[in-house]
């Protein structure tokens, strides 16, 4: 018996979240004494790297039908592989693609599904994991069924672990058993250099910045840090920034290693989307701003003074 992991890629390169999912699956496979199988379309570059994160076997699928991401097709590739190799656990990273695929896999295999997992199971009588609930305002401890289970793991929740493994690669041809009725018309890539949902560092600004014209220093800071940019809801509502940057309860949820919040008050709905970031730096003129209670580091000060100083300090530290 085995654990199956879906290896997601973008522009033919595996994503970091894929390596996290494999590291997780390999550790779970070791705990349960199972084999760790990884599956993906055949096109992807650098398949060998999957064994470095713990893949015991890599099953690739050759098919024109998999060239464009369609949730039903990818799900079919996964559930057919799971059925053929008696995989009683399927692990998928909780990206947009993962969220679309995982429920289909669970429905077709008639497995249970647990989403939003942020840690490795603890072992009591049963395996128990933590999942976020109430939009990051609380956590739930969830019992995992022993088998027949699909799990989605929140990106940036699990350490990457390099292994010595030498996973074998097996290539299959894939033909979908159904007509796919979805047609992709156009893909619009987001402008930012680093996609917000995958960024390890995020520089975010709020209404304290006063106007759209003041974002050049935010972008410069983000560039120096290799960070993505984000904003509070009023900022995107006023169209100072695109909606795709809006984080919070009604926006995107992120969990970067470092979140720098500039001129953002820290309303509960904002914190719901960013509060589980691993390190939070807050810059705000108001020392009573609620965000300081959720911050690790802070500067009580004017963004227009502090941000240029940060840029200067970074340039000095890099030269």
């Amino acid at each position, binding site marked *: 018996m085995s654990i199956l992991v879906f290896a997601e890629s973008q522009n033919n390169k595996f994503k970091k979240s894929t390596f996290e999912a494999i590291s997780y699956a390999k550790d779970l496979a070791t705990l349960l004494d199972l084999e760790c199988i990884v599956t993906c379309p055949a096109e992807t570059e650098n398949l060998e790297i999957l064994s470095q994160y713990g893949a015991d076997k890599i099953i690739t699928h050759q098919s024109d039908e998999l060239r464009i991401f369609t949730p039903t097709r990818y799900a079919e590739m996964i559930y057919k592989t799971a059925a053929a190799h008696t995989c009683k656990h399927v692990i998928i990273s909780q990206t947009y693609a993962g969220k679309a695929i995982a*429920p289909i896999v669970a429905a077709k295999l008639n497995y249970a599904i647990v989403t939003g997992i942020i840690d490795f199971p603890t072992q009591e009588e049963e395996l128990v994991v933590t999942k976020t609930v109430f939009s990051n305002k609380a956590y739930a401890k969830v019992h995992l069924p022993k088998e027949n289970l699909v799990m989605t793991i929140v990106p940036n929740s699990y350490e990457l672990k390099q292994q010595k493994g030498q996973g074998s690669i097996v290539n299959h041809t894939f033909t979908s058993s159904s007509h796919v009725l979805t047609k992709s018309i156009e893909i619009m890539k987001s402008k930012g250099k680093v996609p917000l949902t995958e960024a390890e560092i995020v520089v975010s600004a709020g209404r304290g910045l006063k106007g759209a014209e003041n974002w050049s220093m935010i972008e410069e800071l983000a560039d120096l840090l290799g960070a993505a940019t984000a904003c509070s809801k009023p900022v995107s509502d006023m169209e100072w920034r695109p909606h795709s940057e809006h984080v919070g309860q009604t926006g995107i949820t992120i969990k970067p290693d470092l979140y720098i919040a500039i001129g953002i008050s820290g309303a509960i709905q904002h914190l719901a989307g960013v509060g589980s970031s691993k390190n939070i730096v807050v810059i705000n003129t108001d020392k009573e701003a609620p965000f300081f209670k959720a911050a690790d580091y802070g500067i009580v000060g004017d963004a227009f003074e*502090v941000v240029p100083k940060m840029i200067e300090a970074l340039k000095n530290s890099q030269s």
Partner: protein
Amino acid sequence: MEILVCMSVVPDTTTKITFSDNNKTFNKTGVQYIINPYCELALSKAIELSEKHNANVTVIHVGGNQNDPIIRKALAMGAHQAIRVDAEPKDGQFVAREIAEYAKTKSFDLILSGRESIDFNSGMVGNLVAAYLDLEHANVVTELDVDDNNLICIRDIDGGREKLAIKMPASASAQKDLIEPKIPNMRGIMQARTKPLHVIAPSVAENVGNIQNYELPKGKQEVKLFDTDEVANLIDVLKNDKKLF
């Protein structure tokens, strides 16, 4: 055209989350319940489509009768009728199976849901319903229209957005920005009182929860403050102590 909207009911976004009974139960006392914000978007979109394409909008909710006033709100917004599957849902698969069982008895051209419920954040019910019914589903859609038997929509994908067409019958779940939520007017509220709200018994599915207990986030340690002329020190801590870049 027949549209089915799956609607969940959740605590208001400003609710302070607390638990009782050894952290096993969510404290509902004093909590204000609302239509899940993403479902509100799905519903508003369905109503817009019904005005444009002369569609009939059915709202379905799996839950107890304490939620009837909130279902009436959906009717006041403009849905034509409502179905309540009478059960306290404990897991998303149960909810999805019940909705799929109901949908099988009718023929819906379009099934809309929210991207996720803001209480349990499972983000699965809409996808599961579609999978049980063998429909194609577009997750996280920010634009949606119907054109000549096709659902045309834009969905968020990793690193961008995708425009796609799906042959109907189809299914989609709402992401923020899909539409401005509709606000019920006086006439809508009056009409809602007499619109049909059918209560049906759950049909087949097993309804077991898997939550053992809850935890609140641990309080953060006191923030470490730096003066405005210590910016370089902060950068040094982030870079050299924390190794964040």
